[in-house]
C-alpha cells in the first residue's frame, strides 16, 4: 500500500480525526472503571452487551489484513480464494464446540485469562507454562503483524506525508493511552467505531472496484475464464485439500486465540454471546466475500501484476477510484481510514490479552503471587508497553508477505485446541499427555515451518502437528487417566443443575 498519491493532507486529517475519536471513546469508557480489578480491566467486568460484544468480536477477528492481504490473494489464486469465506465461518462453528460450556464454567469460576481454564481443569504445572508461552508467542506475532500493517496503511493513506515509523508510533501511542485508561471497555467501545469504519471501508472498496469495470462482474469472470482459465477452473486436488485444511486450521486456531476466548468471558449473558455469534456467522459474506470479489475484479483492472506488485492491489484500485471525482476520492479516504481502524482494533485486543497473560499467569502466579490485584494489573500494562516497544523494533524490518506471517502464527496457536475442546468434555483427559501432545504438535509445526516444508499435499504443518497432538493426548490419557479423574463440567448433569443459582 505504499506510494499512494491520491491522498496526503486529507488523509492526515482523517487519521487525526480517527485518533481523536478513539481517545475520546477511551476516555469516556475509562470513567468509573476500577483498573485495580483484573476482571474489570481485562473483561469489562464481564458485562459487554450485544452491540459492544458483536463489534469487538468483528473488529478483532477481521484485521486490516482481511482487506489488504486477502484481495491480492484472490488476485493471484483466482476463485479458489473463495475459501476465505468458509474458513471465517468455521471460526464461529468451532466456537460452538466449546463456547457454550466454557461460558458457564468461566462465569461460575470467575476466569480472567484463557489459562485460568487450563489451571482449573488440569491443575498448576508445566502444562500451564507451555500454554502461556504459546499464547504469548501467538499474540506477539499477531501484534507484530498489525504493527507492520499499520505503518504501511498509514504511509499509504497519507501518500507518505506521514512516514511509516512516525505513523506507527503515533497510533500505537493512541492505542496504549485508551487501552491503559479503559481496558476492555475502551477496547470494545472503540471497536464499535472501528468495526463500522471497516464495514464502510469494505463497502466503498467494492463500490469503487465495480464502478471501474462498469458493474459488469459477469464480464470480468467470463474474460478471466478466457485469459486465465486456471484461476477460474476447479482447482487441483492439492489446492482443494489446502482449502479444506485452512477451514480446519483457521477454524480451530482463531477460535482459541486468547483474545477470542476472553470475549466469551466478557459477555454480559449467554443471550448476548449467542446473538453476537449468530450475526458473526454471516459477517464473512459481508467482508471476506466482498474482498474476494474486489480481488477478482482487480485481475481485469490491473492484469499481469507480479506477486510483489499484486500486494499493492488495494492501494492501486483505491488510487484509480479516487481519481474519478471528489466523491470517490472521499470514499477512498474512508476506506483507508477503515483499514487503519481495523488494524488498530485487532492490535489493541491482542495487546490487552497479552497484558492479561503476563499479569495473571506469569507475574501473579510465579513472580509475585502475593502481589495485590492492582499491582498485577499495573505490571500487565507495563509489560504490554515493553512488548510493543520490542515489536516495533522488529516491525521496522517486516518479514515476508503479510499472509505468510498470518499462517505461521496459526500453526502454533492451534495446538491449544485440544485442552479446550477435548478438556471440557472428556473427564479422562490427563495433564501429562496434554502437555506432551501440545509440545510435540508445536515442535512439529514450528520445525516444519523453519525447515521450509509448507505442507504435505496441501495439509499444512500445523495440522500435522495438531493430529500428532491429538493422538498423544488421547492415547496417553487412555493409558494414564481414569474415567473420573476430573469432576464433570456438564451443566446439564443433575448435580450441576441442583447447584445452579436459578434452576
Amino acid at each position, binding site marked *: 500500500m505504499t506510494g499512494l498519491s491520491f491522498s496526503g493532507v486529507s488523509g492526515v486529517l482523517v487519521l487525526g480525526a480517527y485518533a481523536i475519536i478513539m481517545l475520546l471513546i477511551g476516555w469516556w469508557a475509562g470513567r468509573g472503571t476500577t483498573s485495580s480489578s483484573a476482571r474489570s480491566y481485562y473483561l469489562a467486568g464481564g458485562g459487554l452487551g450485544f452491540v459492544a460484544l458483536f463489534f469487538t468480536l468483528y473488529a478483532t477477528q477481521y484485521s486490516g489484513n482481511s482487506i489488504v492481504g486477502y484481495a491480492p490473494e484472490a488476485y493471484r489464486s483466482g476463485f479458489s480464494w473463495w475459501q476465505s469465506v468458509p474458513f471465517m465461518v468455521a471460526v*464461529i462453528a468451532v466456537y*460452538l464446540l466449546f463456547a*457454550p460450556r466454557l461460558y458457564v464454567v468461566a462465569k461460575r469460576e470467575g476466569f480472567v485469562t484463557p489459562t485460568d481454564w487450563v489451571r482449573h481443569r488440569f491443575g498448576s504445572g508445566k502444562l500451564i507454562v507451555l500454554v502461556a508461552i504459546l499464547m504469548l508467542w501467538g499474540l506477539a506475532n499477531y501484534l507484530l503483524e498489525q504493527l507492520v500493517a499499520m505503518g504501511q496503511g498509514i504511509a499509504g493513506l497519507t501518500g507518505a506525508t506521514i512516514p511509516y515509523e512516525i505513523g506507527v508510533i503515533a497510533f500505537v501511542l493512541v492505542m496504549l493511552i485508551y487501552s491503559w485508561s479503559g481496558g476492555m471497555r475502551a477496547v470494545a467501545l472503540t471497536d464499535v467505531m472501528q468495526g463500522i469504519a471497516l464495514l464502510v471501508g469494505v463497502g466503498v472498496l467494492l463500490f469503487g472496484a465495480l464502478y471501474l469495470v462498469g458493474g459488469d462482474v459477469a464480464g470480468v*469472470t*467470463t474474460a478471466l*475464464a478466457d485469459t486465465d482459465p486456471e484461476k477460474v477452473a476447479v482447482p487441483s486436488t492439492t489446492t482443494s485439500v489446502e482449502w479444506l485444511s485452512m477451514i480446519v486450521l483457521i477454524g480451530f486456531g482463531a477460535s482459541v486465540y486468547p483474545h477470542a476466548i476472553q470475549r466469551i468471558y466478557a459477555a454480559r*449473558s449467554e443471550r448476548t454471546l449467542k446473538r453476537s455469534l449468530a450475526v458473526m*456467522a454471516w459477517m464473512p459474506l459481508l467482508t471476506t466475500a466482498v474482498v474476494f470479489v474486489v480481488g477478482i475484479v482487480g485481475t481485469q483492472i490491473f492484469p499481469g501484476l507480479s506477486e510483489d506488485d499484486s500486494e499493492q492491489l488495494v492501494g492501486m484500485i483505491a488510487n484509480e477510484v479516487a481519481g474519478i471525482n471528489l466523491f470517490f476520492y472521499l470514499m477512498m479516504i474512508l476506506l483507508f481510514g477503515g483499514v487503519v481502524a481495523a488494524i488498530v482494533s485487532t492490535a489493541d485486543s491482542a495487546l490487552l490479552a497479552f497484558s492479561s497473560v503476563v499479569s495473571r499467569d506469569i507475574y501473579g502466579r510465579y513472580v509475585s503471587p502475593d502481589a495485590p490485584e492492582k499491582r498485577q494489573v499495573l505490571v500487565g500494562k507495563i509489560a504490554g508497553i515493553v512488548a510493543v516497544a520490542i515489536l516495533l523494533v522488529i516491525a521496522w524490518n517486516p518479514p515476508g508477505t503479510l499472509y505468510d506471517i498470518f499462517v505461521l502464527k496459526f500453526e502454533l496457536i492451534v495446538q491449544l485446541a485440544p485442552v479446550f475442546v477435548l478438556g471440557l468434555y472428556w473427564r479422562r483427559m490427563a495433564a501429562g499427555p496434554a502437555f506432551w501432545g501440545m509440545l510435540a504438535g508445536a515442535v512439529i509445526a514450528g520445525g516444519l515451518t523453519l525447515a521450509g516444508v509448507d505442507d504435505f499435499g496441501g495439509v499444512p504443518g500445523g495440522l500435522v502437528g495438531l493430529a500428532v497432538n491429538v493422538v498423544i493426548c488421547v492415547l496417553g490419557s487412555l493409558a494414564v487417566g481414569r474415567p473420573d479423574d476430573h469432576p464433570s463440567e456438564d451443566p*446439564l448433569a443433575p448435580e450441576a443443575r441442583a447447584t445452579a443459582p*436459578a434452576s
Partner: protein
Amino acid sequence: MDRRRSDGPGTTADHSAAARPLREPVRNPWLWVAMALVVLAGVPLYLPTGSIRPLVGGVPYWLLISVAATVAFSALTCWVCLRGWNLAEPAEEAARERDAEVRP
C-alpha cells in the same frame, strides 16, 4: 439429547429461553454431520479438476455450488447459535427477573 427443564413454563406459545429445552450444541451429533456435509460440499474436491463450464451468469458452476454451500454453512451456524444453544439463559433470565422485582 435435549433435556427439558422440569420447571419451565413449557407452553407452545411461550418462546422465551426458559420455555425452550436446555440444549448444548455438542450433544447433537446430527448437527455436526450436517456441518461436515456443508463444509465438504463447498470444497470442490469431488468435481473434475480443470472444469469451468457451464457458466451461470458468467460464474463457473462449481463456484456457485461453493457459494451456496457457504451460505448454508453460515445459516446452519447462525441457527445453532439461536436455537441449538440454551444452557445458562433460563437461569440468567430468572435471576434478572428476581433482581427487577427486588429493585423496582
